[in-house]
């Protein structure tokens, strides 16, 4: 039987829920055989994606964020979706150092997501929302 599992969580776009999201996701992800560093990498990626939804998607206003995660065998897939204002220029948003709020953010959100996950796909539509889907494959551990 294929080893697989999934979770779906919806939560308010409250800054307090950034920590909730990354911690919940780390607990789910820990069902797979990651190193501690890899779990931290996944937490950073989730934190960045959820922070983007809170700050840019909803501009710190009320909204719903949907987090879905699943794995099949050794590949973890995470998606974070908001129904906010959307991204005008995805390529520009992904540029290292670009931020629409440069005083507050380093413009490293997508850089971290790309660095820490194997693949990052961003779909966005103006005034409809943004969905970030990321996946990461478990690397064979030494001695396993």
């Amino acid at each position, binding site marked *: 039987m294929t080893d697989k599992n999934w979770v779906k969580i919806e939560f308010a776009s409250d800054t307090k829920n950034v920590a909730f999201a990354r911690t919940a996701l780390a607990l789910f992800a820990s069902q797979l055989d990651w190193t501690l560093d890899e779990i931290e990498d996944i937490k950073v990626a989730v934190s960045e994606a959820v922070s983007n939804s809170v*700050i840019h998607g909803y501009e710190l206003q009320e909204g719903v964020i949907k987090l879905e995660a699943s794995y099949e065998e050794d590949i973890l897939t995470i998606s974070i979706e908001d129904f906010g204002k959307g991204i005008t220029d995805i390529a520009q948003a992904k540029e290292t150092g670009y931020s629409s709020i440069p005083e507050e953010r380093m413009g490293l959100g997508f850089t971290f997501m790309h660095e820490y996950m194997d693949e990052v796909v961003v779909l966005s539509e103006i005034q409809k929302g943004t969905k970030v889907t990321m996946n990461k494959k478990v690397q064979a551990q030494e001695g396993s």
Partner: protein
Amino acid sequence: MQFSLKVVDKTLVATLEGELDLHKSPEFKEEITMLFNQHPEIRYLIMDVERMTFIDSSGLGVILGRFKELQTRGGKLYFVNANPRIRRILQLSGFERISSFKKSTDEVLSQVRGAK
């Protein structure tokens, strides 16, 4: 996330514990900015991150903002006690190029006193 801020001569020592993310960053920014404004003599910022367990771009953005302020004052940014995980994200975000990594707060304080 908890933090303490202490001014020692021309140095602001920030000791952080826990997770610095979007939720806690505004409070940290407000407190640290207030001290910068109250103490125009501050030239050096020591970030003691020994007990910091997590940071993302929201937290890093606050530190970068203070670095820019230090630059206008001719000062310097230091990280002390960075564990490998925290050091890795600091490296990735370019902080190794604009700051120094040291083993202890006392080491930096001795160094900046000698620089007077």
